[in-house]
C-alpha cells in the first residue's frame, strides 16, 4: 500500500528530477541502447517507458508515430536488456501504460513490471475513461507491489486531485497539455502553484508538452519537483544523434539545478 509521506520529504529531496520518456522499440533497439549508455544518475532520475500501444489516444502525433514503429519493432528481450542496464545505474523505472491495454490481462502486466524491477506505473486514461474502476485499479497496482503514479492535468477537478492523491503516497505526474507534444497556451507558473496548494508537500513532476528551458525554470520556481521530457527527444532518437542527446541531458540538468 502507499506509505505516508514525511512532512520533511520536500526538504530532504532538494534535487529536481529529470525524467526521460522513451517508447520501447523506437526507433530501434540499437539506438535505444546507445542512448541508454549515455544516461546516468549525474543527470537523470527516472526513466519512463511506453510499451507499444495500438491506440495511444492521449499522445500527440509525434509520440503516436513512435508507437506505430514500435508495434512492429519491439521484442520483450530487448526491453529487458535496457531495464537491467538502467536499474544497474540506479535509475528508477516507470511504465506509462494505457489502462485499456492492461485491464483485461488478469494482472499479468503488473506482475511483469514488478519482476523487471519497475517502481511504478502511470495510467493516463484511467481517470478519464475508466473512472468507475479507478479505486480497484489502484488497489491492484499496489497489490502488485508497484507505486500508482496519479496522472492529472488542468481539467482534473480539485476534488478528484485530492481524493486520488490520498490513495497513494507516491509522486504525482501533472500533464500540462491535453496530450503529449501539443502546445496550446497555458498558465505555466500558476498551474504549478495551484497543484502544490491542493496536495501540499508532494513530489510533483510535470510533463506533456514541455518545450523550452524557460518553461522548466518557471515551473521549478513555482515549486515543481521535476520535469518529464518525451517529445523533445524524438528527433534526436530518429537521427540517432547520441551526442545531441548527451548535451541535452547536461543542459537540462543545469537548468534544473538553477544554473
Amino acid at each position: 500500500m502507499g506509505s505516508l509521506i514525511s512532512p520533511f520529504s520536500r526538504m530532504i529531496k532538494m534535487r529536481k528530477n529529470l525524467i526521460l520518456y522513451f517508447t520501447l522499440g523506437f526507433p530501434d533497439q540499437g539506438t535505444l541502447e546507445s542512448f541508454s549508455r549515455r544516461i546516468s544518475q549525474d543527470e537523470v532520475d527516472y526513466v519512463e517507458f511506453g510499451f507499444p500501444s495500438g491506440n495511444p489516444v492521449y499522445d500527440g502525433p509525434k509520440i503516436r508515430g513512435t508507437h506505430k514503429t514500435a508495434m512492429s519493432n519491439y521484442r520483450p528481450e530487448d526491453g529487458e536488456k535496457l531495464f537491467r542496464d538502467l536499474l544497474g545505474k540506479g535509475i528508477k523505472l516507470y511504465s506509462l501504460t494505457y489502462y485499456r491495454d492492461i485491464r483485461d490481462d488478469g494482472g499479468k502486466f503488473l506482475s511483469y513490471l514488478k519482476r523487471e524491477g519497475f517502481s511504478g506505473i502511470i495510467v493516463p486514461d484511467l481517470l478519464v475513461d475508466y473512472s468507475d474502476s479507478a479505486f480497484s485499479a489502484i488497489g491492484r497496482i499496489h497489490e502488485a507491489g508497484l507505486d500508482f503514479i496519479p496522472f492529472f492535468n488542468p481539467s482534473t477537478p480539485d476534488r478528484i486531485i485530492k481524493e486520488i492523491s490520498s490513495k497513494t503516497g507516491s509522486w504525482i505526474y501533472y500533464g500540462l497539455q491535453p496530450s503529449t507534444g501539443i502546445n496550446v497556451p497555458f498558465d505555466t507558473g500558476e498551474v504549478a502553484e495551484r497543484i502544490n496548494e491542493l496536495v501540499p508537500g508532494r513530489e510533483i513532476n510535470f510533463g506533456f508538452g514541455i518545450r523550452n528551458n524557460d518553461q522548466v525554470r518557471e515551473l521549478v520556481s513555482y515549486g515543481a519537483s521535476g520535469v518529464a521530457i518525451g517529445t523533445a527527444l524524438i528527433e534526436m532518437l530518429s537521427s540517432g544523434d547520441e551526442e545531441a542527446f548527451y548535451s541535452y541531458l547536461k543542459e537540462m540538468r543545469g537548468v534544473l539545478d538553477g544554473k
Partner: protein
Amino acid sequence: MITSQAEDVIPDSWYNIVPDLPEQLAPPRDNTEDFSSIELLNRIIPKEVLRQEFTFKKFQKIPEEVAEAYRQIGRPTPLVRARNLEKFLGYKGKIFFKYEGATVTGSHKINTAIPQAYYAAQEGVNGIVTETGAGQWGTATALASSLYGMPSKVFMVGISYRQKPLRKKIMGIYGAQVFASPSSETKFGREMLGKDPDHPGSLGIAISEAVEYALENDYRYLLGSVMNSVLTHQSIIGLETKKQLEVLGEYPDALIGCVGGGSNFGGFTYPFIPDSREIDMIASTASEVPKFGKGEFKYDLLDTAGILPSMKMYSLGADFVPPPIYAGGLRYHAAAPSLSLLMQKGKIKHDEADEPAVKDALRVFSKTQGIVAAPESGHAIASAIKYAKESSNSGKTIVLNVSGHGLLDLSIFKDD
C-alpha cells in the same frame, strides 16, 4: 449591501465549471494519426480563448473593456417575476425568467462574441469568421467584430439563409458578409455542392467552411457554443441571475433552459452548482433533435469535415441532418462536453418539446408576458410550463432562461 445596480449585478469574473465537475473532463482527441487538430486550434481561435479552453482556473477576470461593452449592449439583462404566466397557469409557486432577448442583438450569443472578438482584436488578426444556424450567433459575431473594428464573414446554414432573409439583412447592417452554406467560398463547400447543388446545409458543414476560411485567410474563428471557454463567458447569465435572486431574497428550486450546444443552459445553471443545494436543473431539447434521449455519450466530431478535434459528448453523430424545425439553434448534433458529463452523472435532467408544443408555449408567453420569445427559448418555456403543471412541483420557485427574442422568427406562425 446587495443592490440591483448594474455595477453590482455584473460580476467581476466569469465562472469555469471544469475544476468543479464530478469527474475529469475527457480531453479532446485528434481525428487522424499523424496530425494534431488540437494544436491546429492555435491558428483557428484567438490565443486567449484557447488558454481559457484548457485552464484549471475557476474564475476568469472579465477585462474592464469587456465589462463596459457588456453595459453598452444591455447587461445586466432583466430578471422578471412572470406573474401573468403564474396566474394563467394557476401556479401556486413563483416563476421567474431571465431575459437574454433584451440584449441589443436579441440573444445571449453576444455574451461570448464580445470577449472572443476583443481577444482576437488584441492579437491583431485579419478578420473574424464564423458559422450560424438560425442567425443569432452570426448577428452577435457581426456586431462584436464591428465593435472592435474587424471585418467579419458568416457562413449561414443554407436552409436558414433562404428561410430568414431578415437575419441576413441584420448581419449585413452590422457589417458582416454572409454566405449561404454550403458555399463556393471553400473547398469543403464546393465538395458538398458538387454532391447536391440544393444542399440544405447543416451546422456541421457551416463550421467546417468557417474553419477552413479562417485557416486560408489568417482570420480567427469564433466559437458559438459547446466549448468550455464559451460556457465560461456565458456564466454571466447565471451569475447575474444569482445576484438578482439574492436581492429578492429568493433561491431556485428549478432552473430550466434550452439546449442547442449547451451554452445558454450551462451559462445559466453552472454558477449554482458549487452551492451543492437541491435544484432541478432541466435541459430542454427539441424532440426532433433528441441528443440526450437518443444520442450516445462518446467521442465525436465537432464539425462534419473533422478539422476540429473530437470531444466526448452526447451526440447524434456529426453527419446527423436534422429536420427543418424553426429552432435552428437547437439543431446541432451534440452538446457541450461538460454538460454531457453532468447529464451522464444524473446531475442535470432533460426534457424534450416538439414544434407544436413550442408554438403553443410561445403563444402563451406572448399573451401573458408580452414577449415573443425565440423558437429555441420556446423549448425552455414549454418545459417550464410542463414542470409547473406537475402536482409534485406545486409551490416551487422556478427560474427559466429565455435565451432570445423571436421577432425575426415570426414566420414560425405563418400558417396560423
